[in-house]
């Protein structure tokens, strides 16, 4: 019995990695990063990693928030505009003379407040999530322009320096990225997340199982709002000033990233960690293209092609893996049944 079990468990360990929904995105990211590092060895220096971490932290954090919503079969199109609003609110609080112990939490709360607003519209008033959050994106974007109509302002210099710092060769920005990953792993272990998978999988069945569907989706929006607020802070620390339009591109990228990362856009399955790899794949490939000297005029076009390639590649890979997984399920079923008395 023992040898058969061991020979069965060794391949199943690899199988479980390969069948991990986030695996295709991890693979894509590692390949893109390796090419980027080969062409641009500076990327692997401490300074290179600091730049890499600080410029990509906002998208990674925003994508995690979006991933939570997608798993619960809902969405937020106001993430980008809210990031802009958080950014300009933080800068104006600093300009008004508040310390960071006031400015940073208050600005984060702006993100949570917009999460609450979205929850009110989508979960309680039952307005279509696409429409409601699209409308909210104009509210947040308009408020951002009202707070600060043009790029400018500044934040305390030590905050900018902290983001550019490293401890024992580990850049602060990368450590924060790791912290975000740890946070999402903790959230995955929560009872809330199990309910969220159920709600995203089929809300009628979740309801029949006694799950309070509205409460679960509300928590998802509040959590996502918190992540959006933190993404706004990360943006602020990375650019060191305020820009009412800084977040615009993040909305669609924050959706593309989790989907590339294997989160089902129709909810109920996938690993939110995949959003991190999806986000990093997106940014690394666009950096690569810039490195090849592609004109910035083509950048949007190229980024669009990359998103399509990433999505297409993942869809194809997912199909292949789904077939594998079905076979794997049948195989693990057989294995379990053999071991069973």
């Amino acid at each position: 019995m023992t040898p058969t079990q061991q020979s069965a468990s060794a391949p199943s360990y690899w199988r479980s990695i390969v069948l991990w929904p986030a695996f295709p995105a991890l693979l894509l990211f590692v390949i893109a990063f390796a090419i980027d590092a080969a062409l641009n060895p500076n990327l692997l220096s401490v300074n290179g990693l600091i730049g890499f971490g600080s410029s990509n932290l906002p998208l990674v954090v925003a994508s995690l928030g979006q991933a939570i919503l997608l798993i619960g079969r809902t969405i937020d199109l106001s993430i980008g505009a809210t990031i802009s609003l958080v950014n300009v609110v933080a800068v104006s609080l600093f300009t008004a003379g508040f310390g960071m112990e006031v400015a940073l939490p208050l600005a984060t709360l702006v993100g949570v407040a917009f999460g609450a607003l979205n929850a009110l519209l989508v979960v309680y008033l039952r307005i279509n999530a696409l429409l409601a959050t699209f409308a909210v994106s104009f509210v947040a974007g308009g408020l951002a322009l009202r707070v600060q109509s043009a790029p400018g302002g500044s934040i305390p210099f030590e905050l900018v320096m902290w983001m550019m710092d490293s401890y024992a060769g580990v850049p602060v920005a990368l450590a924060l990225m790791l912290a975000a990953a740890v946070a999402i792993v903790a959230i995955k272990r929560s009872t809330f997340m199990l309910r969220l998978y159920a709600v995203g999988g089929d809300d009628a069945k979740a309801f029949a199982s006694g799950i309070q569907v509205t409460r679960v989706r509300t928590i998802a929006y509040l959590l996502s709002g918190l992540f959006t607020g933190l993404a706004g802070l990360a943006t602020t620390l990375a650019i060191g000033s305020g820009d009412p339009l800084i977040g615009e591109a993040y909305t669609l990228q924050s959706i593309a990233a989790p989907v590339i990362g294997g989160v089902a856009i129709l909810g109920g399955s996938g690993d939110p960690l995949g959003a991190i790899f999806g986000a990093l794949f997106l940014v690394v490939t666009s950096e690569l293209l810039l490195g090849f000297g592609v004109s910035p005029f083509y950048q949007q076009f190229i980024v669009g092609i990359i998103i399509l390639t990433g999505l297409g590649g993942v869809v194809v890979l997912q199909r292949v893996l789904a077939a594998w997984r079905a076979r794997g399920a049948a195989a693990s079923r057989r294995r379990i049944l053999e071991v069973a008395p």
Partner: protein
Amino acid sequence: MSITVEHVSKHYGPIIALRDVGFTVAPGEVRALFGGNGSGKSTLAKIVSGAVRPDSGRVSVDGAPIPAGSPRAAHAAGITTTFQELSLLPDLTVAENLALTHVPRVAGLFRADKVIRAEARAVLGRLGLAHLENLPVQALQVGEKYLVELAKALRLEPRYLILDELTSALHEHEAQLVKRVLAEHCKAGGGAILVSHRLGEIQSLCDTITVLRNGEVVADTDVASVSSDDLIRWVGGGSRTGDRGGARARTTATKTARRVELSNVALEADAGEVSLAVGKGEILGLGGLPDQGQAAILACLFGLREVRAPARLLLDGAPVQLRSPTDAVRAGIAYVSGDRDEVGFAIRSLQENMLALLLNRRDPIRLDEAQLEQALSELSTVHGGLTNPLNSLSGGNQQKVLLARCFLLRPKLLLAADPTKGIDVAARAEVHQAIRRLAAEQGTAVVLTSSDDRELAALCDRVLVLEKRMIIRELHAGAGLDEQALVESYLQAPAADRHQVAGAGSRP
């Protein structure tokens, strides 16, 4: 310590589902809710479980009424239900699914995986399924899913279990497990309600029985004191109504010209093959318990399900390959459903709805308003003008509009899926009249499914009774086709695979 259901009535639109019904379940008692298709037994079970709110009447536990229409309230009173349509989520593991109703937690926020798995093992162990704990539900077989649904209910240690058609998908050895678990449950002072249309399982599992027919209680007694014949007579109404006897003189004509022939098609991966033929102007019914393959046959005939060799489909003797409903409509096949949202455009006008079927034809049919009006008036449709939206009409008149458009198409084959669902008796008779005329005047072959055995008996020239994706019986109008015979055919259906399992087990 008992459930009391008193004076419960419920209607859906013009249809009365339940009329002043009541029963009690005492501790240690397993009560069967028994009846034919559309008798109201599932509605009654849903009312007790809180999923459906009754129009009047009440459900109480130990004399205390439970707030109506709340699964949570029923649950708090100790009533747990296994759902026929299953409440399991395919992407989650068995253990996770079991935990969903009440997730064990550590440190307030986090899921206690060890407890989740231990609890799952404990309750699955009672059903001999502990080895399934970590499998995703999508990897389970049908019978196992039903048992896991039962385990999910048992985990909550309910005082009263409602099993809605739980055992119909189970093999014999699995049914034995359910029997043992129910016995343990009753020994511990619990009670249960079993919704079923299978005589065998009622006789082996239940103590008492409430028989429903057309939403009314026709018998309430001990299982031990009644015979199978009594039950069949109660469910079938004991009447030979519905058979129009020799009224159909043209049955000879139907045999001469075969309009549609579907042969050697397997309705399920491992099921045997079925074949059927429908004559010109013949109305063929597909009967039996719900979900025994009736929908799959309609799907084959409408291009929704591939008919692959060796199976084949002949239309007027010529083989046809239908890849989509578009192909089917072009080949002269029309589909009408009692779920009017499925086939009608509710907010669009009558004329748009009537023309919708004709849009895809290769040879256009030109129609003017007068012809549309005439098609509607031939079916005595009451409407306020061709430009009014479909949903401004009553259900019965909507159904006539959707049938009238089939007249315009002059189809070779009409597929009717429960065409009079939810419409009143008068409109139902007119819809029947329309279908008969279509068959008689245009030579259209009709294949019909119905949730009501009386409709099959009243309308069809011939009924094929399905059981587990196989045709088990054929009943002819004028030769014993009536409601009673239909009920009998599916209630006494031989459970083919049970014999197989028993046979396989007995071999060395």
